[in-house]
């Protein structure tokens, strides 16, 4: 969850005059604010500015040539397509897990809850080789799936599997607390009025969790668009087929073609910023709705 959206929820309204008086009470504003800005400038803003300035150096024509080249466009298509498949899977699986973990108590629930965080705790390179071994033709899953005609490794499906694995906690952990806060009365009222389980879910429950679900899916999609470590092992990295945009950046760097690498990186950066602002907007909208209720 983004911090700015969380803040909106928790920040009590303070009269302006009072807050100005309060500023004088506690010490350390100059020191902590100075340190924060200095650190952010040095570690975050300066490197990001370097990318943008260096790309701008090359001129717009060069930038456009790189990002409109067939190979780059194919890489963007693979990345977006696989990220969409991954997000669609996570939308369903993540919602199921959030519901099961929030609503029911059963043996092994704690372990199941902890396992959901595994993709965030497991380094992506490890996830990458593990998924490859699992879905390869001779792997535990691959030797069942491949005779059935489902090839995962070295296909866009494999790319999507890796993306889904690394980003599923976003959906579960965004939706789960919202389900926990739902009031049982509305559901009971609907049931008393004769609504079926499915009607209760689609008409009463889902509208209440939709904004959180959307926010979780947006985060999952954003993470999938940028994922590298988990994907490159399972993808096979065939240009025009399973080559993702972050990998194309890496290949251009190895060829010392820095302008090409930075142009593609700028596109991914722009996508990331857009998704960050979108997620923040969804969260703000969600919290406004909560307050209104």
């Amino acid at each position, binding site marked *: 969850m*983004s*911090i*700015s959206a969380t*803040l909106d929820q928790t920040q009590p309204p303070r009269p302006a005059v009072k*807050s*100005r008086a*309060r500023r004088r*009470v*506690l*010490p350390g*504003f100059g020191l*902590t604010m100075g*340190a*924060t800005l200095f*650190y952010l400038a040095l*570690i*975050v803003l300066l490197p990001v500015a*370097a990318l943008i300035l260096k790309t701008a150096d090359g001129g717009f024509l060069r930038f456009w040539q790189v990002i409109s080249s067939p190979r780059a466009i194919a890489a963007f298509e693979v990345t977006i397509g696989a990220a969409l498949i991954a997000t669609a899977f996570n939308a369903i*699986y993540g919602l*199921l*897990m959030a*519901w*099961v973990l929030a*609503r029911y*108590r*059963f043996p092994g629930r704690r372990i*199941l809850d*902890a*396992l959901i*965080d*595994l*993709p965030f*705790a*497991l*380094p*992506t*390179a*490890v*996830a990458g*080789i593990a998924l490859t*071994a*699992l879905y390869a033709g001779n792997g535990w*899953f691959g030797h069942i799936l491949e005779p059935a005609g489902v090839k995962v490794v070295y296909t866009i499906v494999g790319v999507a599997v890796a993306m889904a*694995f690394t980003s599923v906690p976003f959906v579960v*952990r965004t939706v*789960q607390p919202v389900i926990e806060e739902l009031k049982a009365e509305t559901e009971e009222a609907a049931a008393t009025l004769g609504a079926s389980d499915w009607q209760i879910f689609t008409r009463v429950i889902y509208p209440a969790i939709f904004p959180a679900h959307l926010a979780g899916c947006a985060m999952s999609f954003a993470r999938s668009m*940028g994922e*590298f*470590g988990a994907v490159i092992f399972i993808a096979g990295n065939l240009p025009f087929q399973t080559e993702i945009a*972050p*990998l194309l950046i*890496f290949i251009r*760097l190895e060829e010392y073609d820095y302008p090409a690498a*930075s142009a593609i*990186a700028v596109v*991914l*950066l722009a996508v*990331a910023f857009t*998704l*960050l602002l979108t997620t923040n907007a969804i969260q703000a909208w969600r919290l406004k709705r909560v307050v209104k209720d």
Partner: protein
Amino acid sequence: MAISHQPDSLLQAPPSKAPRWLIGAGIVLTALFIVGPLLIIFDQALAKGLAVFRANLLHAETLHAVWLTVVTALVVVPLNILFGVAAAWAITKFEFPGKKLLLTTIDIPFSVSPIVAGVCYLLLYGSNGLFGPWLEAMDVRVMFTVPAIMLVTLFVTSPFVARELIPLMQVQGRDQEEVAATLGASGWQIFRRVTLPNIKWALLYGAVLCNARAMGEFGAVSVVSGNIRGQTNTLPLQVQLLYHDYNATGAFAAATILTLLAFVTLILKAWLERHTRGQGGH
């Protein structure tokens, strides 16, 4: 990240028939999708027997990679703890214009692809980078060295502590600190005696997550490290190197160390979550 904290009494009685298949589906999918990859790591690592596994773990390059990974985390985590505490103090104890912009800026590293983060640093400190000519004139090399690995890891993990502390300290307010200040306590005394006891579990929680990512980061580090064997190879890079050397068993053996780290992280996380709930977080 939020976690359940609803008292059990408010929850529904043992599930009726509808939920039973939902729980079943959840367990089966998680077993296939998440436990499967976990188990195959150990299966592959032990594929050639315990002796080979042991030899792989004790390989000099792998041990050096472990060492470099630990050193990187030891530098990165404390710095990001300091940043997180400073940012949380400035943001939650004072009012100032542009607070939202600052919060969004703190979030940036989480939304940027690790590869893009690596490129940013390459274009700042590399020989073709913004500071390149200047660094060359001073005969300082940053790219493809251990400091470059640390810098890019600082970038990637900088939000972890801050985003745990900010929502918690916002909820806790400033009243206790203001009382302490009125009673004549210094800034450091207020922080150590009043704020720190209130936030210590959330601080640890953020540090644990920061550490896990610092030790496991792959994409950003692979751009700036130069992959020099036995010198600038962290453990995740070593896993990739062995894997591409057609030494899958060795790669999975090195991966078990990182998997162990993931286990420790999850256990600490679950344990800390119980404490942070008591402090009003999550």
